[in-house]
């Protein structure tokens, strides 16, 4: 059993916000598949439909998406809050707003619904009016974190964007404002994909956040920078799909590791798979997760054991059905 911000977690793995988390039943299933902490889709101040399709495209090396923060609105989710009140799994509620006041308004209400922690999404690139502005400016990040911290009585996680010129400084501003943990990274970019036959961007919103294996080196660097800047724990995510990826994230300084796009490549069972791969590596190297957290910051690192090959099942669930 892992403990994070006082919450008992059965594994050190986290479901990234925006992935699957649309109802209590699917969140429960993801938890059952080996995910320690599941995150709800970001909840906003008022009903929002998000963008027209195409919204999510797989590029093979990762995905590009501009779903556009769809939400029923925090005060329009009674049935969901009711279903979640009987849950037997730890829940992270992601929230967003268009202003400090909106963040606080949503946070106050959501906190009363009894999530185990609240994650402020100050890093979404897929809306013109929400999120990312707060994540690239130290003063704004401090202001929104402090305002939310004042009105909630559960731990606060700040979800950061790699678009920040110095993500360590943003993380420090959040820590100073009372954040209990940092989650990094949200999608990178934004990027754009143009179809040359249609002669137009594929995404309806034109630009979108990048995720999956192609952004892993960016995510590792960000977590590494944040680890040096703050003393609060870090949820590291961005491109993790295997146990080896998770280890890289731990060594960069993450206490927990999140996954999102990995569900595309290895299915919901990816959480169980990564747990097994992670534990196999730790056992083979006669070490523990606690011992490898931040290991990459010790400049004299040497192999403790002969490298072992970890059996990985990379089979794509989508292809197996096809003759």
């Amino acid at each position, binding site marked *: 059993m892992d403990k994070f911000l006082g919450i008992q977690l059965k594994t050190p793995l986290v479901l990234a916000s925006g992935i699957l*988390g649309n109802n209590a039943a*699917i969140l429960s299933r993801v938890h059952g598949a080996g995910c320690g902490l599941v995150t709800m*889709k970001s909840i906003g101040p008022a009903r929002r*439909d998000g963008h027209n*399709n195409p919204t999510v495209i797989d590029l093979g090396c990762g*995905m590009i998406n501009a779903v556009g923060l769809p939400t029923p609105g925090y005060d*329009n*989710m009674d049935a969901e809050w009711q279903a979640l009140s009987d849950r037997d799994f730890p829940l992270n509620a992601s929230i967003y707003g268009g202003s400090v006041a909106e963040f606080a308004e949503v946070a106050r209400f959501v906190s009363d619904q009894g999530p185990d922690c609240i994650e402020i999404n100050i890093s979404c690139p897929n809306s013109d009016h929400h999120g990312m502005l707060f994540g690239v400016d130290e003063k704004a990040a401090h202001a929104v974190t402090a305002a939310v911290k004042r009105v909630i009585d559960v731990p606060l996680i700040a979800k950061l964007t790699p678009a920040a010129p110095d993500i360590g400084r943003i993380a420090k501003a959040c820590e100073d404002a009372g954040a209990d943990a940092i989650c990094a990274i949200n999608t990178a970019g934004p990027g754009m994909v143009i179809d040359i036959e249609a002669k137009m961007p*594929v995404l*309806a919103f034109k630009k979108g956040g990048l995720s999956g294996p192609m952004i892993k080196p960016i995510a590792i660097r960000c977590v590494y920078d944040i680890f040096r800047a703050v003393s609060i724990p870090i949820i590291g995510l961005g491109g993790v799909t295997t146990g080896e990826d998770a280890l890289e994230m731990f060594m960069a300084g993450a206490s927990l590791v999140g996954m999102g796009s990995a569900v595309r490549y290895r299915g919901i069972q990816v959480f169980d798979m990564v747990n097994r791969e992670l534990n196999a590596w730790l056992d083979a190297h006669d070490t523990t997760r606690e011992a490898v957290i931040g290991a990459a910051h010790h400049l004299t690192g040497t192999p403790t054991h002969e490298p072992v090959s970890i059996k990985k099942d990379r089979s794509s669930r989508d292809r197996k059905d096809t003759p």
Partner: protein
Amino acid sequence: MIFDRKPVMVQVTRKTVHNPGFVTLFFDLAIDFQPGRFIMVWLPGVDEKPYTISYHGPERFGITIEAKGRFSRQALSLSPGDWVGIRGPFGNGFDIIPSPHVAVVAGGCGMAPLAPLVERLDPNLYFVHGARTKDFILYPQRFAVKRHFTTDDGSLGHRGFVTDLLAAEIRRRKDQAQPQFDMVYACGPEMMMHAVFTLCEAHGILCQVSLERYMRCGFGVCGACVCSDQVVCTDGPVFNSDQLQKMTDFNRTALLKSGQPVALSEYVSWRCQ
């Protein structure tokens, strides 16, 4: 071939107008397929929506579109030579049982995913197709196997529901001590599929139905199409009796574009806008 990443732009090569409300667009593209799987169809500048493959050959496939909302009306107006983007196929498809004792139950444009299935099932299958009126019967000449019709107005076949005929056939097999259905396949309005499921449950008969929900990614990450704890685009769209028994959202709840769960009737009226 599988085209499950960036959309592939293809030209409409042929268009069949079945009646004012239904057209089939054909594309000359070899695509891997099992009956019941679907593709995402992108009309650049308009939107992208899931459609089942209703015709499939080695070098060509077709999708059948019913005039419903903004997107489908635009798709209906496409002509040979026009370009669309496609991604897929996605989803699981029907589990095909090699038995002569199977039934296929189609309601309205629910015929589209079932048509390639009918062509692969044993020709002795029991086949029912219901529609509003005679004019709304899809593919009237397509099949060599016998099809029993029902219409709301009695303009063709039995006036009433597809389940009237299915129930009578189940009873007949029971009364005459003939082998009972090993599987019932259904696609149509969710209320109809639920009636088929309930009927099958009452007689201990297995069934498979194909569900519809608002979709975004098509490959199981965004969660827009969740139905209870099932992800319709990857766990489905075809679900069997065992799964349906546990899916309390079946025939009850669906998510709007915002993610808000609403009663199925409210969802259906939104989808027809």
